[in-house]
């Protein structure tokens, strides 16, 4: 129920309800405060910009994941797609002019995503199955094309990209700026564009959407294609950061992306979720990793903590729907 903030705070148990409702932002702020208290390195610009650089790639595919999840689907292929497309970009940038290489990579990403989209929308394949198959295929192809070893950037175009990816503008890392722009575009599209409205409608009741004359198949197809194009964007960014495209990139990123979307309060049944909250989810996951690194916690315990946070966040959301 849409009440003003003041009304919410003044109703019985209001403050608690308010916190539960905006729990992702709340958790995020808590984590920031906690991190600042526990480590004096945290609030240095080096650390913060590292944090942003680390999350940007996963962040971009999380936005694609969000759009797919909003329709009630899932895209398991994005991690492998990042590897395949990073290798692709490294090969292309060594052959073609930079803008052309970027464009081609994104188009190929869109095309690969379209395969999942086609299978899900027109062949009625379960999203889990279709994208699982694509995940294996993409990973396999990335090893084949790279012959198993990383492809290094060798041209001026590649040099330009790696400079871009490692520098900052107004102290914000360039690749984080790309990520934020994508978040803002997604926000606008989901809120103010027919595309977003229909995607959410399809996720909340597919049959009613169909009977409202909505081109359900077209939109279900499109979301996977867009997710593919965003995977390509993420691939270009992560490849540029390290100056190479490797078939080992993006390992299990699809799981982090799903986690970020879910921590952001989206429902895997579709129809519920926002770009801002997904951004929060991405930052929360990144923060946890960052602070645990600062505390020198080894990576296996880190995974345990991450898992626990996911459970906690989703349990909190449960109260909201009551």
């Amino acid at each position, binding site marked *: *129920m*849409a*009440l003003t903030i003041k*009304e*919410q705070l003044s*109703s019985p148990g209001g403050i608690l309800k308010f916190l539960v409702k905006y729990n992702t932002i709340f958790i995020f702020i808590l984590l920031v405060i906690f991190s600042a208290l526990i480590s004096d390195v945290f609030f240095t610009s080096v650390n913060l910009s590292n944090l942003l650089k680390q999350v940007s790639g996963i962040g971009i595919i999380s936005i694609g994941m969000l759009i797919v999840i909003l329709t009630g689907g899932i895209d398991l292929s994005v991690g492998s797609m990042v590897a395949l497309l990073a290798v692709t970009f490294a090969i292309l940038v060594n052959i073609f002019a930079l803008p052309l290489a970027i464009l081609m990579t994104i188009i190929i990403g869109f095309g690969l995503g379209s395969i999942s989209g086609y299978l899900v929308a027109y062949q009625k394949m379960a999203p889990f199955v279709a994208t699982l198959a694509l995940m294996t295929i993409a990973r396999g192809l990335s090893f084949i094309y790279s012959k198993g070893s990383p492809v290094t950037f060798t041209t001026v175009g590649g040099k330009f990209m790696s400079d871009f990816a490692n520098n900052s503008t107004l102290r914000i890392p360039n690749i984080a700026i790309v990520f934020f722009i994508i978040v803002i575009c997604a926000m606008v599209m989901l809120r*103010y*564009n*027919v*595309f977003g*409205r*229909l995607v*959410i*409608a399809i996720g*909340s*009741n597919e*049959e*009613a*959407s*169909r*009977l*409202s*004359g*909505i*081109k359900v198949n077209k939109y279900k197809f499109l979301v996977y294609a867009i997710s593919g194009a965003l995977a390509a964007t993420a691939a270009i960014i992560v490849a540029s950061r390290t100056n190479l495209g490797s078939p080992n990139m993006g390992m299990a990123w699809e799981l982090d992306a799903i986690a970020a979307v879910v921590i952001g309060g989206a429902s895997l049944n579709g*129809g*519920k979720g926002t770009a801002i909250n997904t951004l929060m989810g991405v930052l929360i996951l990144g923060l946890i990793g960052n602070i645990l690194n600062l505390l020198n916690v080894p990576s296996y315990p880190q995974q345990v903590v991450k898992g626990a946070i996911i459970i906690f966040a989703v349990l909190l959301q449960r109260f909201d729907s009551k």
Partner: protein
Amino acid sequence: MKNSASEYRLEMTGISKSFGVVSVLKNVNLKVKSGEIHALLGENGAGKSTLIKILSGVHQKDAGRVVLNGEEITPKNTHEGQVLGINVVYQELSLVNDLSVAENIYLHKLGANKTWMNWKGVMNDAQELLDSLDFKIDASAKVKNLSIVQKQVVEIAKAISEDTKVLVLDEPTTVFDPKDVKKLFQILFKLRDQGVSIIYISHHLDEIFKIADTVTVLRDGVDTGSMPIAETDKDGVIHLMIGRELNELYPKRDIKIGEVPIFEVKDLTAKETLVHDVSFDVKPGEVLGIAGLGGSGRTETAKLIFGADKKKSGTLLLEGKEIKTNSPVDAAGYKIGFVSEDRKEEGVFLPLSIRRNISITSFDSISSKLGFINVDNEYKKVLNLIKKLNIKAPNSEVDVKNLSGGNQQKVALAKWLSIDSKVIFIDEPTRGVDVGAKIEIYNLINEVAKKGVGVVVISSDMPEIMGISDRILVMHKGTFYGELQKEQFSEENILRYSIGEPLKTI
């Protein structure tokens, strides 16, 4: 602490309930004896369903007492309610689509104290129960393959068991034809005579006066009166419900009906349903009624034309030109509309706001070429409709799942009636809508017709279909059996055609 002195089996006293800052029930009393049918009436959003959900354990009351058989009860969930003998047929269907009828009927009893189920026994018991209700339903069928009428019967079967002490039916007959209603009444009378307390919610006042012994009326969350049915009449009840007299239920229509049909259907036959050889036309400005018994193929005909079901043969002509509707997208493209009778599954988007629900069909008029929505126009349009249809909600941003059933129906209608259509099919337009709001909907239908739209209304509500149609087609076993002109309208004539008999010649 047995208090056997009380003459009531169930006493709800001083019940109050709010959702957030919205107060829905204020100090409500409801007292039901054993072996009586107690009607609970009130406008859409008056709080009837909420009161019932407090009784059954879905919601928790903020204040008040519920006493059953002299003992105070506070069910925390529906399971506790059921153990106490309170069984409810909720307003919205809540069956599990992928399970069989039998499994659904015995779902809440599963795992009670047995680890293993005797499925054969369950199947037989379920079939026996269904047969005793006198509706022909196969207990082993999957629920998703049932018609909405059959689903409703399964809900009723689910609620009936040996230890039911209080049986609540929240608008059980909205999809029933008169024959089905009669069958249900026989079942209820039998249960009443066995001593079950029955609470019956309906907006069909005729039904109330046929079966209820006592009536309690709610208005805006306050009970405005409770009395034996013999001490009141329809006008009296309406007055308690809406606080004023109601004028003409069916508004006068002075619409010029066009000569040339706007839409024609020729020899339409379905691939997968019983619909065959359907031919009819509808003229601009005309309200064409389609009557028939449940299962006669009315909904299927509309869905076939709308492209939701597959066609085998037949021709559709829109404004004289042949069109093909292979999917709802095609149909919507030709400006053909369809309001489904199944609002929860096919009509509304429960988790979305009223605004997002209503504007889903009208982006053409409120967004730019690139698809950006003019939110100001959207608000204007939506608020206007909320006012016009008297949708009861604090604002346009409330999720539809938090609206009362009748108000959800209005949202489903608003979605289609607010856009420019050429032909519109409306299946059970006033399902679950109160008497006052029915008038608003009829007015809106007339307004739409006045613009030159061909309106086709499917309804099981006899007075309604006779009250609003210019002409009625009656369906029987998947095809039109007969046509009635205005001067031939009568319940008897409709019923004769719907069972496949000719009219009596005078």
